[in-house]
């Protein structure tokens, strides 16, 4: 290209702009937020110099002391029914079988196959010192309620999975925005140089909307999620193929020399630099991942706690993912998301448009014991003080039937809970109407949830911005209020 010959006249290329954005805006935003190491500048010595600079320079803007350092996001794909889990509604029992439109205004639903008011097939009982109501679906989680803050007044903007998933994960209903895990890593960096800072533990089900739920969007590519699968080989080619020691290192060193030569002839080229650091990260992960996924140092009691000895293969699988999540937290990974296992029985996800009883029971059985195990294990190790565990679906379900034994999507009210770092355990926040159909008090939006999560990490959601396409973007766009009532 001709403009390379005129270094003082040429306009800034897209590639250089990206480079500037990566380590320029990124570090500036980060310094003002937390002052930690930016992983995209992952070249080790450079990173350390940056860290020293960040740590020793004067303050730019007030960040604040975080309550939590990591987030484990337990994503309940498909939408758990709030009236069958955490929001008991006796009135459904009384009016079971009556026509919902004679009781309240019924919104259009996805399938518009509106049946009768449907009581919960499960009974509720009070648990813990706080006396939180939990249904029979979650006997294990019910033992942890004193560590959980329950929000019964969640609302979403979208009644359909794909948009609602994008909204929950990226703060926008449209495809292509950065996921919350990418934002967190952009803002705070990773504590571990040998592992990516945003890990998706794939339980078997990739949610509607696909991997765009977990991408970096316009943020630098280093911030997207890395996916670990269940099973023997969590990442392809994680075992070195070369059998003779040293061969792989030599190959990589040669590759790096070639890349560096190319780089020196090109000037700043984000792609080549990224490729070099990718190879380095991949090499490091060949030792860090097997160490991570090897559970031999875990005691039998702990494995049992997570349900690794369960009869149900899905419980075992999700239990292994939960245990992995704890191990990732111990290694300083900032944001870990777990997707649901595929439980079969024609009941994939929590999306029970029909056959509510079987579907919700299979899903609940797969996740209940592992999640309770995770909370208890984190607490025993003192990690729950610095880890925020978030449990939520993308929306809730209708209090009336779809057909006669299912429930349709309901974005107007659903329940979610958080536990751990900075959360006031045993809190119940927000209320729904007598049917659990709409929020009547203290609605909490997805933006509010994001603002609260960032707040607990010591980040002001209004300060975490990235300039793209001519304006500053935030995870919370122009919305979001921290839900202070659930904070300790």
């Amino acid at each position, binding site marked *: 290209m001709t403009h390379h010959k005129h270094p003082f006249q040429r306009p800034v290329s897209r590639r250089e702009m990206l480079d500037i954005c990566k380590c320029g805006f990124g570090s500036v935003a980060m310094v003002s937020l937390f002052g930690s190491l930016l992983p995209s500048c992952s070249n080790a010595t450079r990173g350390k110099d940056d860290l020293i600079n960040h740590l020793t320079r004067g303050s730019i*803007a007030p960040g604040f002391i975080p309550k939590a350092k990591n987030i484990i996001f337990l994503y309940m794909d498909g939408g758990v029914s709030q009236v069958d889990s955490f929001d008991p509604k006796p009135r459904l029992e009384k009016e079971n079988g009556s026509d919902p439109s004679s009781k309240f205004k019924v919104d259009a639903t996805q399938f518009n196959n509106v049946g009768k008011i449907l009581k919960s097939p499960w009974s509720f009982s009070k648990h813990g010192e706080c006396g939180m109501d939990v249904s029979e679906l979650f006997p294990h989680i019910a033992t942890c309620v004193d560590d959980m803050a329950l929000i019964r007044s969640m609302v979403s903007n979208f009644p359909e999975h794909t948009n609602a998933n994008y909204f929950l994960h990226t703060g926008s209903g449209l495809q292509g925005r950065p996921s919350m895990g990418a934002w967190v890593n952009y803002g705070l960096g990773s504590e571990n140089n040998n592992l990516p800072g945003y890990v998706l533990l794939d339980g078997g089900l990739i949610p509607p909307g696909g991997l765009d739920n977990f991408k970096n969007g316009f943020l630098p590519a280093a911030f997207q999620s890395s996916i670990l699968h269940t099973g023997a080989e969590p990442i392809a080619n994680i075992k070195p193929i070369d059998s003779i020691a040293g061969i792989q290192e030599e190959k990589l060193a040669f590759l790096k020399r070639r890349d560096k030569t190319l780089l020196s002839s090109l000037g700043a080229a984000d792609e080549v630099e990224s490729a070099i650091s990718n190879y380095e990260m991949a090499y490091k992960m060949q030792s860090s991942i097997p160490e991570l996924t090897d559970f031999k140092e875990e005691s039998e009691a702990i494995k049992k706690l997570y349900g690794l000895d369960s009869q149900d293969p899905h419980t075992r699988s999700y239990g292994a993912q939960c245990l992995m999540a704890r191990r990732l937290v111990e290694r300083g990974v900032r944001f870990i998301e777990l997707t649901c296992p595929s439980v079969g029985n024609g009941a994939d996800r929590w999306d029970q448009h029909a056959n509510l009883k079987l579907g919700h029971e299979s899903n609940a059985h797969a996740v209940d014991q592992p999640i309770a195990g995770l909370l208890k294990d984190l607490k*025993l190790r003192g990690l729950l*003080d610095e880890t925020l565990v978030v449990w939520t679906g993308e929306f809730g379900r209708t209090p009336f039937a779809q057909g006669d034994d299912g429930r349709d999507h309901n974005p107007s009210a659903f329940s979610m809970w958080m536990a751990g770092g900075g959360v006031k355990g045993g809190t119940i926040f927000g209320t729904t109407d007598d049917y659990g159909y709409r929020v009547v008090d203290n609605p909490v939006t997805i933006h509010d949830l994001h603002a609260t999560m960032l707040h607990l990490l010591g980040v002001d959601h209004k300060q975490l911005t990235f300039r793209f396409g001519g304006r500053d973007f935030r995870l919370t766009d122009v919305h979001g209020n921290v839900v202070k009532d659930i904070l300790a």
Partner: protein
Amino acid sequence: MQEVPDLYMFFGRFHPLFVHLPIGILVFALIFELYLRWKPNASLHAVLPIVWGLAALSSVLSALSGYILSLGGGYNEEILSLHKIGGITLSILSICCFILAFYRLPWLASYRKTTQKIVLSSIAVFLLLTGHWGGTLTHGNDYLMEYAPFVQTDSTSKLDHASRISSLDSADIFKDAVQPIVQSKCVSCHNAEKKKGGLLLTSYEEMLAGGKTKAGIIPGNTATSEIFRRITLPPSHKEFMPTGGKKPLTENQIAILEWWIDQGAQRNMMISSMKPNKHIQDIFSDFFQLGRDAILSYAAKPASSEALSDLLKAGFQVHAISESNNLLEVKYSGPSNEKINLSLLEPIKDQLVWLQLINCGVTDEDLKLIGGLSNLYKLNLNRNKISDRGFNELIRLPKVEYLNLYGTLVSDSAINQLVTLPKLKKLYVWESRVDSLGIEAGKRANPKVDIVYKLN
């Protein structure tokens, strides 16, 4: 106030720009003259007229633009007239020096040395005074000395009102909340010396009265209260206050002013008697820093970069826990075969508030050093082979709130000691040598400590 034509005013506004030229040139000229007296040099002497010529020209330009700027009004008259006299005198003196240097007048030759002494020293004195008066006009009276060491300043200006309020019941809405906010964000421009826009904000009456344009505050009506309108405009708006890149009011501060105005802008009233709702109570709690974590009141000087780079080289992770207070978290996570060098932590003792040494061969000996890290709020030593002998060293930690000793050899007798730590809130001792009897005894000794030791 006189009407000043726009073009004049435009020129006048250049005063802050011009004014630094004569300051620099005059200081340079004075040093130059002193040097020439010390080491006379004919060729350098020839430069003197140029230097004094520039000094005279820039002084006159500054004085002229300053005079025009002063016509715009809004300044403290007394200091303004002093500043004006100083500026004009400096211009005249510089012109004199220029003439002295340029025309080497024969009749002056005999008095030359004395004249020069008098003129030069008066320039030095006037330069200092005029500069100071000018600074007082722009930045306010207490700007210079506000952060000076060993000077007792007005306590409200540094926002330490918060420490005086121990509960909402003892706080007065105006005296303890509104006035400190206004004092910290507005008074540097709206005081007796500067009076920008004709607005004074040093007392209750002045706030209500407002300035040139409108009344400042209309009790019960935020929409027509000019002060409230100005502080809630978008920051890019030209009428936004505070202006000139000064720190805007925080959300909480605005919310407090809004609530105060809505409630009738009372002059004397206890906040609790005004029946604030839960939301407003939370805002005030935040504002008065009630019930907040102890660590939030602690800050340190920045750590030395050598100490930090030594730690990083030795394999420690170092993280700043927030940007504003220079506090650090240090983490070392094993398993590690080498003995880690904990003495590297001593140079950052003041900054080190969170320390995690996990599964990395810490011994009882090492705890002597750790026990001396007196600013630790959070200490995590899980999975190290440390025993009761070492834990006695930790009793010295005055601030520690979180102590994680799971997987160590801690036993019942150490628990009894550890729960006496004055600030301790959480103690983790799972997989150690404690049993339920020891835990019970510990809980009796200090019921405030949450001891986690087994699955429940």
